[in-house]
């Protein structure tokens, strides 16, 4: 079974600085997708960034980028130029072609300080 581990329950960063959130996963699959979702306080979950496992190039979306290390089964999220609106829970998630379910980590609570 696939598992997703986020080892940082809480993190904080000063506004305008850079922060990296860690995620590792365990799978025997070769084809899968990885996601970072953001869940702001009392608001719904939204997709931040997505990576196909077969692509070696790391995904980027504006201030958000990932460091995908397939052999190490690591998928970290880097947020550059942090903004107050980035304060949220961040969930790493795994989806394989062979299953219908998305597996989520326990989340990292990120606080951006002014």
């Amino acid at each position: 079974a696939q598992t997703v581990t986020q080892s940082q329950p809480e993190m904080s960063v000063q506004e305008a600085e850079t922060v990296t959130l860690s995620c590792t996963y365990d799978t025997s699959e070769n084809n899968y997708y990885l996601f970072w979702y953001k869940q702001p306080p009392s608001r719904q979950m939204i997709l931040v960034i997505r990576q196909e496992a077969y692509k070696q190039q790391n995904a980027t979306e504006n201030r958000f980028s990932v460091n995908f290390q397939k052999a190490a089964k690591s998928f970290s999220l880097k947020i550059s130029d942090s903004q107050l609106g980035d304060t949220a829970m961040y969930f790493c998630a795994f989806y394989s072609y062979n299953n219908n379910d998305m597996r989520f980590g326990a989340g990292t609570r990120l606080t951006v300080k002014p």
Partner: protein
Amino acid sequence: GAGVSQSPRYKVAKRGQDVALRCDPISGHVSLFWYQQALGQGPEFLTYFQNEAQLDKSGLPSDRFFAERPEGSVSTLKIQRTQQEDSAVYLCASSLVGRGGETQYFGPGTRLLVL
């Protein structure tokens, strides 16, 4: 267009009561997912529909949980004889087509509290 909506947003039930939670996916989305999110945890998969077909219900924790999507759009998650351990946020998500690593669009969730 409108996003995924869920109702009610909050539900308080007495232990033993039956509850029904509704999900309206984005119009035209084929796939629909239900998740359970306990306090301070990530969402956990409950069940998956492709149109009206329930293709996977392996995450449903007991036979007290039942989900349906009879016309391939709106879905209802029903919990019978609720227990305190059922207290959680229930999230619904939809995606455009079938299986695969597509983006899932989440609703705001229904927060269920069983007393």
